[in-house]
Structures are given as C-alpha cells and as structure tokens.
C-alpha cells in the first residue's frame, strides 16, 4: 500500500507492506536510524517518536497507520547546529552513558514537558515510565528534564 508521511518536515512516499512496523519504515526505508529498537514487547521506549506532537512507541504502530500524519524523530529536534533545549540539558546534566536509550528518552521527555511544563521529580519519573535505561542512569535523566523545565540555565 502506498503511504505518504511527513517526517521532520519532509514528505516521504513509499509502497509498504501493511505489516511493516513504523520503526522499521523509519529506519530501513527512510534511512533515519536515530530511532532505536530495544525490545520486542513495547516496553523499552527506545523507539519513541512524536506522531502529531505526542510521544508514541513507533514499534507498536504499523507504517500504514502513520499515512498522512506528521512525525518528528530525534533527527528533527535540533535547529541546525543548535541543540534542542532538552538535548542541551541532557548534555549538561550527563544524562547519557552508552546513549542507546537517549533518542527515545529525549523524545518522551519533550512530549512530557509539553503536557506538564512544571513537573515535580516524581511526576518526571512517572512521565518517563515508558522508557528504560539499561545503563540505569535514571537519576541524571530526571535531573536533565527538571533542568530543562527550569529554563535550562545553570
């Protein structure tokens, strides 16, 4: 089936098998490999992107469901060489170790702050419940999100 999807502002049109998972479409067909795959059970959140502005696990959607929708992946977050404030906060707060969970964490965190711009520590933890960090670097991830919410200045 032919689908047209806007990803990071550019429109992509391809013929896909209905069973193609959205994350496979983004990585293997469009070639944007920033979005990771970390599990088979919809648990880890490494594949988190935005669909129409909301965080979604792209391994739990078929590409055909994204036909006509507006997607944002980690590659589309920065403004040229200027990092998105959430990326900058992750950098400043050392919120990544191996970096595997980071694209999904950042995308989940950006969506979360849009819904809850002034969260408590506990709310951040609940808001990132769908994302696992195998390096268990949660402490600094939570710090980074709070840092970003507070305006990002040190």
């Amino acid at each position, binding site marked *: 089936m032919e689908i047209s999807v806007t990803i990071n502002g550019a429109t992509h049109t391809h013929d896909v098998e209905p069973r193609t998972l959205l994350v496979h479409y983004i990585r293997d067909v469009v070639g944007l490999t920033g979005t990771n795959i970390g599990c*088979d059970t919809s648990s880890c959140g490494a594949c988190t992107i935005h669909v129409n502005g*909301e965080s979604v696990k792209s391994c739990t959607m078929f590409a055909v469901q994204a036909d006509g929708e507006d997607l944002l992946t980690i590659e589309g977050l920065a403004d040229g060489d200027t990092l998105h404030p959430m990326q900058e906060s992750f950098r400043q707060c050392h919120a990544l170790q191996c970096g595997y969970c980071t694209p999904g964490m950042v995308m989940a965190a950006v969506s979360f702050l849009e819904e809850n711009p002034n969260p408590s520590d506990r709310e951040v933890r*609940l808001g990132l*419940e769908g994302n696992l960090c195998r390096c268990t670097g949660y402490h600094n991830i939570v710090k980074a999100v709070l840092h970003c919410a507070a305006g990002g200045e040190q």
Partner: protein
Amino acid sequence: MIPAAFDYVRAGSADEAIAALATHGDEAKLLAGGHSLIPLMRFRLARPAVVVDIGRLDDLSYIRDGGDHVAIGALTRHRDVETSELVAARAGLLGEVTSHVGDPQVRHRGTLGGAVAHGDPASDIPSALIALGATLVAAGPQGSREISVDDFFSGFLETALADDEMLTEVRIPAADGARWGFEKFNRRAQDWAIVGVSAVVRAGGDVGVGLVNMHSTPVRAAAVEGALAGGASAAEAAELAAEGCEPTEDLNASVEYRQHLARVLTRRALEAAGL
C-alpha cells in the same frame, strides 16, 4: 518480531468497518489503538488474515454529557479520558484508573473501546467500568444494542460481541459526588497489575467493586458489595473479596497470594473511597 502478513482495510465509517467484518468473519480483526493487538501479532499469537483499521473514525472519539450518564466514544484515547474534566466530575474513578494504564506513550494511542473489547482480565479499565455499572453499545449489521458490563465478559479474551459487531460507545451512569479508590499492585514501573481493585461509593451510598486479574475475566466482587449493603464494615466486607474468583498462578503470584492481595487491596480501596 515481524507480524504475519495480512490484508489491510482502512474503514472510513463504522458502517464500512461492520461491512468488512461481515464479509471476512473471524478472519478479520479491528485495529483501534493497536496497543493490545499489535503486541499479540508481533509474537504471532494473533494472525488475522484481514486487519480493519478503525483508528481514523474521529466521530467515535468524544466525551459527552448525556444527563444521567457520561457517553464516551469507543475510539477515545486513554489520554483524553485521563484529562477530561467531565470524566473527572461525573465518572472520576474511570479517569483515575485510566491514568494508571501503561505509560504516556501507551495512553496516547490506546483507546477505551479497545481496552474493553480485548476482554483482558489483567486490564485495569474494565474494573472501573464494572464498579461504575457501565453499559456498552455495540453496532452490527442489524443495528445497535446495549450490553450491560455484567454480561459483556464471557471468557479469557472473549466478550459478548459477535464477529460482525463493533463497540461504538461506553455509557457510565453519572457518579457526581462519588468517592472512589483504585489499588494496583505491581512490582515495577509500567507493569500490569498482579491484582487490582476499583471501588466507588456513590453519593447515595451504593457501592461498586471490580477486580483486576482475579479470574479468567474482569470480575465484580459481588460478595463484597452484598456484605456492605447488609451493613458490614469495609474490613469485614473486604475479607470476601476473593469469593467466587478463580485466579491463575504465574511467575508473579500463587493463587493464595492473589486471594490475599484481593482482600488487602479491596480494604484499602474501600477506605480510600471513604468507608
């Protein structure tokens, strides 16, 4: 894993979806938010030959005040239920329970209708609908019918819906001024409940209690409700929480442990609801 191949039909209306179901019978599956169906398909525990996508039926995504009830369209996303002021004011238990489902990404995609139609005893949402005494509206080739939530869950992942019927609306008798409690016991963030309990005490004093993961279906704690109506205290009534239930044993809990959890969590939920 990658799901088995299927034919994809995108329904433009509820009637189109029902027509597709009528044509393909039990070969076909509706796809709403996909957050129960796609995980099953990835493990090839479900291999529908035809997938009928109803995810774009925006006219079935709504939360309306029906006077004596709140009407919620089957395609309404968990996030919209969780943040609705109308649900908070008139069916607060459902809003609270929905906010404990999965994680934010799951709640952005999953729908109320999908959570009910899946018929999963481990799902949190049916327990709230049982406690609140919801009515489910199903549409088929012959028109619409209403099904009481007490007649809806017929077996493990089985419901009263026929192969050619779809759920269109969930109606919740208004519970203004009610108090409620929801207790979900699990060991890790994001996990499903090992056991869960929804309890509501309506302004007039009527009590409803629904249980998660205590039986092959979502189930009402009828003995608890009966004891409370007969004047028992919350602690006395909660002792009856596992009565009539046949919970399963798994890696997380033995049968006895589940029965114990049901009693303790029911007492806590009733106390949170003001009893």
